[in-house]
């Protein structure tokens, strides 16, 4: 009896009723179809762009722009700080007009006019490269 039981236990029919083989095949087919769709989606995904000349140009532009802008930003911040401390009330009276003078007599238009053109060009480049759409356009031109 023991040998018979051992033999029976090795037979799938002696265990819990298993789903029909055709049904299992159908389930497998569905799982495979899902897996294949995943694989196709994976293959169709745009590969990560490789590091290129555009990235180097972008980085160089951003660094030089930051270096160039720093004094201007510092000067503007200094003017603003001075204005806040020295004459907040007077500034409020004048308004924030383009020809309104800071406490040292400098106006906005003067500050921009005195900035070296090269610095302004670099700042414009930095803004251009910081905008993703513009950068993508540049990338297509540069990388072909």
């Amino acid at each position, binding site marked *: *009896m*023991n040998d018979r*039981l*051992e033999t*029976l*236990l*090795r*037979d*799938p*029919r*002696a*265990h*819990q*009723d*298993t*789903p*029909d*083989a055709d*049904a*299992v*095949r159908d*389930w*497998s087919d*569905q*799982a*495979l179809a*899902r*897996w*294949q769709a*995943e694989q196709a989606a994976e293959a169709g995904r745009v590969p990560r762009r490789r590091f290129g000349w555009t990235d180097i140009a972008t980085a160089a532009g951003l660094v030089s722009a930051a270096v160039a802008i720093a004094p201007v930003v510092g000067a503007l911040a200094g003017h603003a700080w001075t204005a806040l401390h020295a004459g907040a009330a007077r500034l409020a009276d004048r308004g924030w007009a383009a020809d309104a003078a800071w406490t040292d007599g400098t106006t906005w238009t003067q500050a921009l006019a005195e900035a070296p053109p090269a610095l302004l060009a670099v700042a414009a480049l930095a803004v251009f490269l910081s905008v993703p759409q513009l950068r993508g356009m540049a990338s297509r031109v540069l990388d072909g």
Partner: protein
Amino acid sequence: MPVKEPNQLAAADFEPLDDDAARRFADAFAPRIAAQAARFRLPHDLCQDVVQETLLRALRGLPHFRGESRLSTWVYRIAWRECARAAAHQKRAARGGIAPAPEVEPEAAPQPDLAAQADEYARVRAAMNGLPEQHRLALGYHYLDGLAVADIAALMEATPSTVKSWLKRGRDALRERFA
């Protein structure tokens, strides 16, 4: 290529993992996964979920399988988790008053000349159904899937001595009921 038993298969047998290899993988393991789900007494629709989710997870993970265990043990382990999740879902559904899905349809009536043999199988099945779940699952893994005690222990998160105890007590109970 000779057909290998699932327990003899290795990840290298499915390299490169293309559509053909995935088909061979599914053909080899889907029946075993379905049998495992049935041993959990899961209804038909949950068996389907278990088979599909296990195959998908295994196919996704196969390229990263490092061979820390046998491939079959790894697949059964995924199936075990899916079965446990499905069983928990079934219990929650039962507690929430949601009617569980119908059980697997019973086999068609056997031919007269096979009736005696079918009756024998039915008696074993009935005896198996009366066993505690862990004993029933351990017997299935051992006798049907051919897993070693150590593999079953890893699968069922138990010690080998515990698995041996489950197998012995399961066999003893079956002998009593089957005698």
